[in-house]
């Protein structure tokens, strides 16, 4: 298989979710030869599952709303390790990006004035935390992600983007200078392997929630971009920061939007007590997600959980009335009836904190260019590689993402990556072509899998990996047990390197794809484990029982995980927004 | 847009409308004849030819046969384009049906004008 076919593009975007499609749209509209490589048909990407909305200060609900207030909330929500320049960019450019979505046809819900409907979400405030709860999340009922993803796909059809649907990207191709010059990919339908040559390679591969046993994430969220970056020797940032969403349906893991609480729903324990009033007296159920998730776990640990096992709490919605529920949360009614066998119109939904979002990812600048550090810890651009969306860590979410900020992140930084590539290509960016051996190096992973005829089943190893992460790296973490978890992961690496393919056929062989995905899950899990164990403090979503306090002196920084050393280096957080004053770290209360 | 020269009018809405209107005419004609039969004290050739001797019945009948031809053709055309995937077979069947409908039309004209 040494001589595989080459397909030549200006830009190859790996991932057909919101971020990838937004980046592709920008480039296709500029007339660049752009390809989107997606392992599923684009509208089946995980963006489709986003429910509540896209948070942005478009001043519909409150005409005096200000993007700076949104910025304040986001910085506070991040527990102060979000990069302030990037957050400033996201919050200030956001309205433009949201209006563009409307112009493209996104069917937003509307106010009486005909403007976009906005609902309250967790962690939102007016006037820098002093003006009470804000309503800043733009919504299309409770199907905003679906509406957004379909709109972006439609926009790309109009713009003439090339789609390589049901193609799976395997590994980055690096030239002799270490620059990224494309990816190797496999057409799932035919099994053909191809080198996709590109001046710019964009990873918009989404999250990796499938490293955990219980997750709201789709089955496809296996962190392929993170895995590929790590195998290419590039660092990833803040991988210990995993958001556990307070309201995943107990047992099924499916997401119930924070918009439920935004519309007036609240959580109760087995005594019927609205317990968030104790943990967050002001914001109550609309405190940051990390705060709510931890409070729920504490309720369970203290024996106030619901059900025979006492292993969940209830989300109460029935008091909102059938009319409001039908109008504002129709998708939730469907999901709850299907997966929880509970009709929210009459009874509460059993929920439990569930792995939801990867705040970490491939470190990038605002233009989506991937970064690493030189020996003096200065940022250095990785030529030819870009990332955006959940796969990237730009970092706007820091240690904890606010609800509704992920969709904004997608469109703002998908667009920004498109603009940056546009500029770079117009300036005549060129690199040395990949040699035959460069391409072959990017086929090593798949060849290793294909060469083994005997070994373990993918499904067994995957299950053990997911259980390990769930057990040792969940909502609460502790040094000793994390070390134990790391040992298990070392054994799991050996097992992953020993899985055998039970099916070597070419046509639509999903067994091969699952084996490749498993290698990515392992890379993500290991980066998470090592970064989590090293960060000896509690911040945002990273809560340690042995280091319960935030430690700004030592850890007001990003962690950069380097795969070659299997260790981390620190990276400074950006505290220099360009048009507003720095938001200094404060004690974070809701 | 999909082109099709053998459909009745070549246009979807027109075909659809013709089929609906012709259906109404055929229904009205059927009701009219049924009522006439029921109201008749005794069936006879004289009564029958007397009915068709009236000018307005001639016009109504011709309208009905025109409706029948249009209605049948649209229906048959739809069915043949659905199920007959071989072009030669489909065209042959369509031509046969056209011929039969044409014969019906001529015979009806002849019969009604012969009264």
């Amino acid at each position: 298989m040494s001589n595989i076919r080459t397909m030549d593009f200006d830009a190859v975007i790996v991932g057909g979710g919101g971020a990838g499609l937004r980046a592709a749209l920008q480039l296709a509209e500029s007339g660049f030869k752009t390809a989107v490589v997606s392992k599923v048909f684009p509208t089946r990407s995980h963006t489709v599952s986003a429910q509540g909305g896209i948070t942005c200060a478009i001043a519909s609900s409150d005409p005096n709303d200000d993007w700076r207030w949104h910025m304040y909330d986001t910085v506070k929500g991040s527990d102060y390790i979000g990069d302030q320049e990037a957050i400033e960019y996201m919050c200030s450019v956001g309205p433009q990006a949201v209006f563009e979505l409307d112009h493209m046809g996104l069917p937003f819900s509307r106010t009486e004035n005909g403007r976009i409907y906005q609902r309250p979400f967790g962690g939102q405030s007016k006037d820098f935390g002093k003006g009470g709860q804000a309503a800043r999340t733009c919504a299309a009922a409770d199907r905003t992600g679906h509406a957004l993803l379909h709109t972006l796909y439609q926009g790309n059809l109009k713009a003439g983007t090339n789609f390589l649907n049901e193609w799976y990207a395997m590994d980055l191709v690096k030239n002799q200078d270490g620059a990224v010059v494309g990816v190797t990919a496999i057409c799932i339908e035919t099994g053909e392997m191809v080198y996709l040559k590109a001046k710019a390679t964009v990873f918009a591969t989404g999250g990796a929630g499938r490293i955990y046993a219980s997750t709201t994430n789709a089955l496809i969220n296996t962190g392929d971009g993170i895995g590929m970056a790590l195998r290419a020797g590039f660092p990833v940032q803040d991988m210990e920061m995993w958001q556990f969403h307070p309201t995943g349906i107990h047992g099924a893991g499916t997401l119930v939007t924070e918009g439920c609480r935004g519309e007036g729903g609240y959580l109760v324990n087995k005594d019927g007590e609205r317990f968030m009033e104790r943990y967050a007296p002001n914001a109550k159920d609309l405190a940051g997600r990390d705060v709510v998730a931890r409070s729920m776990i504490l309720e369970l640990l203290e024996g106030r959980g619901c059900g025979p096992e006492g292993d969940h709490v209830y989300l109460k919605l029935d008091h909102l009335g059938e009319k409001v529920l039908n109008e504002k949360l129709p998708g939730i009614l469907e999901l709850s009836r299907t997966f929880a066998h509970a009709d929210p119109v009459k009874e509460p939904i059993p929920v439990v904190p569930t792995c939801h979002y990867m705040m970490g990812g491939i470190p990038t600048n605002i233009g989506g260019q991937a970064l690493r550090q030189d020996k003096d810890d200065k940022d250095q651009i990785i030529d030819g590689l870009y990332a955006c969306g959940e796969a990237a860590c730009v970092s706007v979410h820091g240690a904890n993402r606010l609800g509704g900020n992920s969709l904004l992140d997608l469109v703002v930084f998908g667009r920004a990556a498109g603009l940056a590539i546009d500029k770079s290509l117009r300036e005549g960016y060129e690199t040395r072509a990949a040699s035959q051996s460069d391409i072959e190096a990017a086929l090593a992973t798949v060849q290793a899998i294909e060469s083994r005829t005997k070994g373990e089943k993918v499904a067994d190893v995957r299950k053990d990996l997911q259980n390990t992460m769930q057990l040792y790296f969940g909502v609460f973490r502790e040094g000793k047990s994390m070390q134990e978890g790391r040992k298990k992961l070392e054994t799991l690496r050996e097992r992953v390197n020993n899985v055998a393919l039970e099916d070597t056929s070419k046509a639509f062989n999903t067994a091969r794809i699952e084996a490749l995905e498993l290698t990515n899950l392992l890379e993500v899990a290991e980066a998470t484990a090592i970064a989590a164990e090293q960060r000896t403090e509690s911040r945002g979503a990273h809560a340690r029982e042995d280091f319960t306090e935030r430690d700004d002196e030592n850890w007001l920084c990003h962690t950069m995980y380097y795969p070659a050393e299997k260790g981390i280096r620190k990276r400074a957080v950006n505290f220099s927004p360009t048009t507003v004053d720095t938001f200094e770290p404060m004690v974070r209360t809701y | 847009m999909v082109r099709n020269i053998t459909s009745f009018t070549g246009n979807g809405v027109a075909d659809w409308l013709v089929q609906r209107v012709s259906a109404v005419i055929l229904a009205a004609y059927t009701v009219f004849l049924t009522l006439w039969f029921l109201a008749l004290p005794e069936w006879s050739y004289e009564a029958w030819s007397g009915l068709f001797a009236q000018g307005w019945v001639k016009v109504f009948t011709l309208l009905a046969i025109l409706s029948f031809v249009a209605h049948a053709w649209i229906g048959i055309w739809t069915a043949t384009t659905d199920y007959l995937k071989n072009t030669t077979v489909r065209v042959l069947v369509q031509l046969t049906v056209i011929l039969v409908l044409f014969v019906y039309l001529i015979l009806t004209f002849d019969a009604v004008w012969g009264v």
Partner: protein
Amino acid sequence: MKVSVYRYNPEADRKPYMQDYTLDLPEGKDLMVLDVLNLLKEQDATLSYRRSCREGVCGSDGMNINGRNGLACITPLSQALNGKSSLVVRPLPGLPVVRDLVIDMSLFYQQYEKIKPYLQNDEPAPAIERLQSPEDRAKLDGLYECILCACCSTSCPSFWWNPERFVGPAGLLQAYRFLADSRDTATDERLAELDDPFSVFRCRGIMNCVNVCPKGLNPTRAIGHIRSMLLKNAT
């Protein structure tokens, strides 16, 4: 429990066949059909099917379950069995099979693309969003929610016979979604593209589409609206 699955691998099999599996189900839990397939795949990794969100919003796992099109991930086993003792899973009917439960959806997507599924507005965009009243927005409800799973179009005989020329219920639902959008100004052009004997008028109103839609949408009603608009425009 006995599960019978349609198998076809173009490299190995000359003809498709049904393969029977026996599966021990966990007690006291009503699995979804997708869970069953996932358990089978642990047994037999060669079984191929599409899946992604596993919660009924991505539209990957449309298939024919005990004779009825639906999404495997939101079809409970109890409902699929409906008193019967075995589960029979086949690919969606009417389109070519790539492998096992995976169909080639090219024709389905082509019909979707044909109706120009994107907003067209020739007026310059305002600095903010284009305003739309809640009443006008309500006209899009029941239309924009389509997940392109193809359960409807592959249950439609008219689409089976003319997949190249009849747009099919999914495509027409989206055609009406843009015709009904107060922000879209291409109504006349859209209608002109649909004004032939096949694109819309092959719908005979048998409502199989409505019957199987996993999102509870009503393509037949949307097609009726398109027909009325065409009629109004033509007369």
